[in-house]
């Protein structure tokens, strides 16, 4: 059992608050992705769990042990670093065996585990090589194998794919998912790449300015952003936002069209819709086409709705060009609302 529990963790560097009262529980064998833009504190949080950074306050628990005062080597974790940190003076075999030798395992067991994980990561033929003789992708595999060989309760990954080129990243992503699904470890994975997060995670914790904004299943995070930031950060292109003014009977007027909406004290709230949840219809929002980008299966249309930037992903067989006037109707069940002050999601009753 290796449930990870982070309780009220904060980290301050002088006046700068990198992490602000983080509470997060990662279930045993769960794949949790920490997602956020650079500087949001996701790597700091990972390093606090690893023990490479000490929290200014709060507690970190792994399983039934409180670990925030323990050095990294006593936490039962393994880690994959962004720059791999494959030791240049050791062969691939010795790199993978490093942690096992530190545990003073018998030689036969070391051989068995190194062989098995090397096979798993498809680097069995590279065991005698040095890091300098490997490609970036192979080094990445060594770094993952070194972590897997430990058969740890917890694997921490710090942007492990960010230094690979696009094609290799895609390949490694699928492979990592397969390998980690088979192992019985709890994984915390840091990335700034939302596609990576969506494809790998059991749950995504979206971070912004040192806080966790939302920690839910990927589809939840995508469909029901807890805050405006999540909607604007996740999705490519991101969510569209328009101001909605209070009308009669608890309805809201958006660009001259009336929608049923949540109850709110405010006179103006934010209306949000994802670009792919729009379709041309006579009673839709009035939009003037600015840019049309055909992308094969669909096309991305950038419009102007009441002076706001507004994007729609439409069928590629619609004939559109710059300056056309268009009416775009949002799918009613996909409309989301946000409070303009707190930026939190407003739920329909």
């Amino acid at each position, binding site marked *: 059992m290796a449930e990870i529990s982070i309780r009220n963790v904060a980290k301050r560097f002088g006046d700068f608050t990198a992490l602000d009262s983080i509470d997060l529980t990662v279930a045993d064998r769960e794949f949790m992705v920490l997602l956020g833009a650079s500087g949001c504190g996701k790597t700091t949080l990972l390093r606090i769990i690893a023990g*490479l950074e000490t929290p200014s306050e709060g507690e970190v628990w792994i399983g039934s042990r409180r670990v925030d005062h323990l050095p990294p080597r006593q936490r039962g974790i393994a880690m994959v670093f962004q720059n791999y*940190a494959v030791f*240049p*003076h050791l062969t691939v075999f010795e790199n993978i065996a*490093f*942690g096992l030798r*530190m*545990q003073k395992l018998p030689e036969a067991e070391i051989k068995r585990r190194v062989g098995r994980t090397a096979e798993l990561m498809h680097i069995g033929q590279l065991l005698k090589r*040095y890091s*300098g003789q490997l490609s970036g992708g192979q080094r990445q595999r060594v770094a993952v194998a070194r972590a897997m060989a430990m058969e740890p309760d917890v694997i921490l990954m710090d942007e492990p794919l960010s230094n690979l080129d696009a094609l290799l990243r895609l390949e490694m992503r699928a492979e990592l998912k397969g390998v980690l699904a088979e192992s019985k470890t709890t994984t915390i994975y840091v990335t700034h790449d939302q596609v990576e997060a969506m494809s790998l995670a059991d749950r995504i914790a979206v971070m912004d300015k040192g806080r966790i904004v939302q920690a839910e299943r990927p589809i939840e995070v995508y469909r029901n952003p807890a805050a405006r930031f999540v909607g604007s950060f996740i999705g490519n292109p991101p969510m569209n936002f328009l101001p909605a003014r209070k009308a009669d009977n608890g309805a809201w007027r958006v660009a001259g069209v009336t929608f049923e909406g949540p109850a709110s004290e405010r006179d103006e709230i934010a209306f949000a819709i994802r670009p792919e949840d729009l379709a041309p219809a006579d009673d839709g929002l009035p939009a003037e086409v600015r840019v049309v980008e055909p992308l094969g299966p669909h096309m991305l249309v950038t419009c102007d709705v009441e002076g706001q930037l507004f994007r729609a992903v439409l069928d590629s067989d619609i004939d559109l060009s710059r300056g056309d006037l268009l009416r775009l109707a949002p799918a009613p069940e996909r409309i989301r609302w946000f409070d303009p002050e707190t930026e939190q999601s407003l739920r329909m009753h």
Partner: protein
Amino acid sequence: MEQRVLPYLLLLPATLFLCVFFIYPFLLVAWQAFSEGGSFTLEHFQTMAGHWKFSTAFWNTMLLALAVVPVQIALALLMATLVTRMGSGRDLILYIWTIPLGISDLAAGIIWLAIFEQTGFLNSMLAGLGIIEQPITWLSYQNKSTIFLAVVLAEIWRATAIVLVILVAGMGLIPKEYYEAAEVFGAGPWKRFVRITLPMLRPSLQTALILRTILAFEVFAVVMALGGTNLPVLMGETYVWQFDLQDRNVAAAYALVILGISIAFTLVFLRTLRVPREAQP
């Protein structure tokens, strides 16, 4: 055409400098050591080796190097580790520790003479504490082992800093991530030192060892200050033959012996501490 000539043209000044100031004098010295009246001879080497002081000087030099260099490396490793881990004040400590580098070796010898001589600090201190009643003549010819020890101490005090500087620079080049990885994968401080620092410091250790060993074979002024001729060393004998006995040829032979030992040890260090190309970062 010009592209081909240019590199050689740029190398020319340095080559000329080397030829005029190093290779030519070296050839002169070598010729002096191997010739008598214009013809080749080994006579000067026989004179040198036949003199009773030669083997004493040879072994004293070797023993001094053996006693001094390993201690210096170990001490410098410890000091470099401490300095590297420091946050603020690191530069200040480094400057203080490197002060002896700025003192000439003769001055360093005289400083330690002031400590060890009959009316020196050590005797006054011991007498002051009531441990001795009569001052002890530490550096007399009857006390060769204390002379040796004094030279070792003075040399360690004087020249450890150069090793320190090289090792601090080398440690600074080891990326922090390797230590973090080692730590996560179970290595405590000592294991990290042995498994990460030492192997990755090999190029710096090599440089430091070569430099220090060559300098240790050339030890002279400190020995002169503390032991005079009571502790003969190779460089001292070279001086004696050149200026006291006025025999340039034997002095040249001594110089060549020192050169030969230096080259031999350099080759050994180059070979044993070589980092294979594939294992380079």
